[in-house]
């Protein structure tokens, strides 16, 4: 998944942040009475109310098979539910539209038992035919972005109304997690008898909410699904996802009470929001890792000593302080601590200029070289990181020129491997490591064809281990393999792993049970508003 285009918002936010935060702070202190007036966590649940959720951008599509931006993904997850879902800590899976599954001894045939008594928002009962139709849609077109997730599925059959049998081409360990991907969310078979175009105007799902209106580019209004299967839920009457690109306006709307949640306040505002009366500022553990990627098509970066030297020369703590205002943690691995495959002991490169100089001396380019670093022209975070990297590589004799391009061009150049160095990041959509590993570490023509996140890194040992982990079933065995992969990536890094970034949310104290999962989604069926 990729965070949406708010370049304009970033530019304006960068200019406005200091001035307006100070002004808003002055206003806020007017009604602050000292200690934060938090509503008791275990207060009796209150029903009703519509929650206004401010975000930097609107959704692109309601069709979960067609989206790759987080705004769409996380909103779609309020409407459609897959067979499984992640637990709130992102470490395990729990049943959603399925209640259980069995797998054959050769690990090729998976039988999912569906939940009984689940109705779509139009009152129609959910059955196996709906699940089959929905899962098949994911890879129905070559241009669908999530085709790779279901690539190992050979066939799907529906022996009974509440059983779905998925046969895979190989013993496919990530399948249960794949079935928790939003794109595999269940919709009615054959679009409930409508054309696809008509269906997506007012889509039908089994989730806690359904679409009331969508003013494209502005606001998605969801209302409670009267047929929702969890008794008594959702507590809210509705959720309005409103597009408010300006960081300061989102903050002011939250303070004024016209919105209850501000998604991703500016990092410069986080500390101040933490002590503001009536507002809770939460930093939820995420799967977001920020990197500095090296393109191995460039001769310098084929040399592991150069990659290690650069990795050692970067003061990650300084970057976390400058970019996230200290609200992140230094990375030691490609994987974040929020995911089950994270290996705390991975000896990922850390700031050590002496070691960096030693590595550089051992490289084929001991006297350094000139190189370009791709940065988004409106992206203040990348510009700041770029300037830090520029100054920190100077002692190694590496002269870095910042190559500023606009957002769309940056994406095109990154995805086309047309860069020398570039800032890249990862988040995962499923809790199984396979999505990230095949995307950001596997080289060659790995499952996703992304050549280790466009770096053209191709370590046969890493490729072999990642493939092996896809076909081994005890999770403990898989964990050992991923630990090995992380160790190799520390010794032969395709990227300099910089920091782990949490998901920052500021919300009114009237909002209860709001929780963001490491995959970035939220479950509004559990959320309630106090009067």
């Amino acid at each position: 998944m990729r965070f949406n285009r708010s370049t304009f918002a970033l530019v304006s936010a960068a200019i406005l942040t200091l001035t307006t935060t100070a002004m808003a702070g002055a206003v806020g202190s007017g009604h602050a009475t000292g200690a934060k007036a938090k509503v008791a966590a275990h207060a009796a649940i209150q029903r009703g109310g519509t929650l206004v959720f401010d975000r930097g951008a609107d959704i692109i599509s309601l069709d979960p098979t067609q989206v790759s931006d987080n705004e769409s993904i996380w909103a779609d997850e309020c409407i459609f539910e897959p067979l499984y879902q992640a637990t709130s800590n992102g470490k395990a899976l729990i049943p959603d539209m399925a209640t259980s599954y069995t797998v054959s001894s050769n690990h090729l045939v998976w039988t999912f038992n569906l939940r009984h008594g689940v109705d779509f928002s139009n009152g129609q009962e959910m059955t196996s035919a709906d699940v089959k139709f929905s899962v098949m849609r994911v890879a129905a077109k070559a241009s669908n972005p999530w085709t790779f997730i279901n690539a190992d599925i050979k066939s799907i059959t529906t022996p009974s109304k509440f059983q779905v049998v998925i046969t895979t081409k190989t013993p496919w360990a990530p399948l249960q997690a794949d079935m928790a991907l939003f794109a595999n969310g269940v919709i009615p078979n054959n679009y409930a008898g409508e054309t696809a175009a008509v269906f997506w105007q007012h889509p039908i799902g089994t989730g806690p909410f359904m679409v009331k209106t969508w003013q494209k580019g502005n606001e998605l209004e969801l209302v409670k699904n009267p047929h929702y299967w969890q008794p008594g839920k959702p507590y809210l009457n509705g959720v309005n996802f409103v597009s408010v690109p300006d960081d300061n306006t989102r903050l002011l709307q939250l303070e004024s009470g016209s919105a209850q949640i501000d998604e991703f306040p500016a990092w410069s505002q986080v500390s101040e929001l933490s002590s503001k009366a009536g507002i809770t500022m939460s930093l939820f553990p995420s799967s977001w890792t920020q990197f500095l990627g090296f393109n191995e098509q460039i001769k310098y970066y084929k040399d592991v000593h150069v990659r290690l030297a650069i990795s050692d020369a970067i003061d990650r703590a300084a970057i976390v302080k400058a970019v996230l205002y200290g609200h992140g943690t230094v990375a030691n691995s490609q994987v974040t601590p929020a995911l089950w495959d994270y290996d705390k002991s991975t000896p990922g490169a850390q700031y050590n200029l002496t070691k960096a100089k030693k590595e550089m001396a051992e490289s084929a380019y001991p006297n350094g070289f000139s190189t370009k670093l791709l940065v988004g022209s409106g992206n203040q975070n990348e510009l700041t990181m770029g300037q830090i990297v520029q100054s920190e590589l100077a002692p190694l004799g590496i002269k870095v020129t910042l190559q500023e391009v606009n957002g769309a061009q940056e994406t095109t150049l990154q995805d086309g491997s047309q860069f020398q160095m570039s800032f890249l990041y990862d988040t995962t959509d499923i809790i199984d490591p396979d999505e990230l590993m095949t995307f950001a570490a596997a080289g060659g023509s790995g499952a996703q064809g992304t050549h280790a996140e466009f770096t053209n890194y191709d370590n046969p040992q890493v490729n072999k281990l990642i493939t092996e982990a896809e076909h081994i079933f005890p999770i403990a065995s898989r964990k050992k393999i991923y630990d090995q992969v992380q160790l190799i990536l520390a010794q032969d890094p395709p990227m300099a792993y910089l920091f782990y970034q949490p998901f920052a949310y500021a919300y009114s104290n009237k909002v209860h049970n709001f929780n963001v999962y490491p995959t970035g989604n939220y479950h509004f069926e559990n959320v309630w508003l106090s009067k």
Partner: protein
Amino acid sequence: MLLRYVGRRLLLMFPVAIGVTLLVFFSIHMVPGSPAYTFLGPHATKTAVAAFNQEWGLNRPVPVQYWFFLDRLFHGDLGESLFYQSSVAQLVLTRLPVTLSLLVGGALLSVVIAIPLAAISAVKSGTIIDQIIRFASTAGLGMPSFWIGTTLIIIFGLVFPLFPVGGYGTGFWGHVDAMFLPCLTIAISISPQLLRSLRTSLIDVLGSDYVAFARAKGTNARTILLKYGFRNAAIAAVSVLGINIGFLVGGTVVIENVFALPGLGQLMITSILDRDFPIVQGITLIFSVVVILTYLATDVTYALLDPRVRL
């Protein structure tokens, strides 16, 4: 004569608007960056990109794509958004009222602010009141509109919660309520120029021979100001206002961004960043028509105010 002029200008609007779309179409295609990569995100494999380009006709030569755009346009179809996958006309039309009400409301409020202040400043020329008004207008000129907007939100949305903090509101009065602060922001940006232009013209007019003659005839000061002063001074002010509205059409995005208004400016910026070509084309067409009509209205008003002007 006037009608013939208006008719001719309206006819000329078509080639001008088409010319603008031609320039924008080719220039946006020249800027690097592919909508396929933006739409498909990090999982944009070569196969998926090729399929996306094929599906949307983006693999055709740019002149051919422009020809298809023109063909659709002459059939009343602005095409389909690559991202929202829905009609551009529908997207644009739902946002047009927001931008138009911002422009019209801003222009009206700027007139409401500028006229009385210009009159006081001209009549009290050289006094401390005149100095204060001129200083305030200079200060208004120097303040960026995003800062004015944010300040107004803090004062009138948070400290004194009289108006909503952003958004377009619902229902007619909800829209009026929500649009007041954005329009005021525009008015504060435009009115200093209008005020200064009006003040200078009024001072000239009030010092002219025909006004001295009217005074000698015993005409009262109010009639002189309203009948002779404003009518003549307004000619220059109308030009200033017209030009400013023309510039504002492309500049509403800042106001829309600060006030979270779902207008065309915001859609235009995100569409340019995403390379959603059909939306960029559609909005460009609408903007060019609005600018042309604004300048036409300015010329017609000019002629109506001053019969010596022949169109």
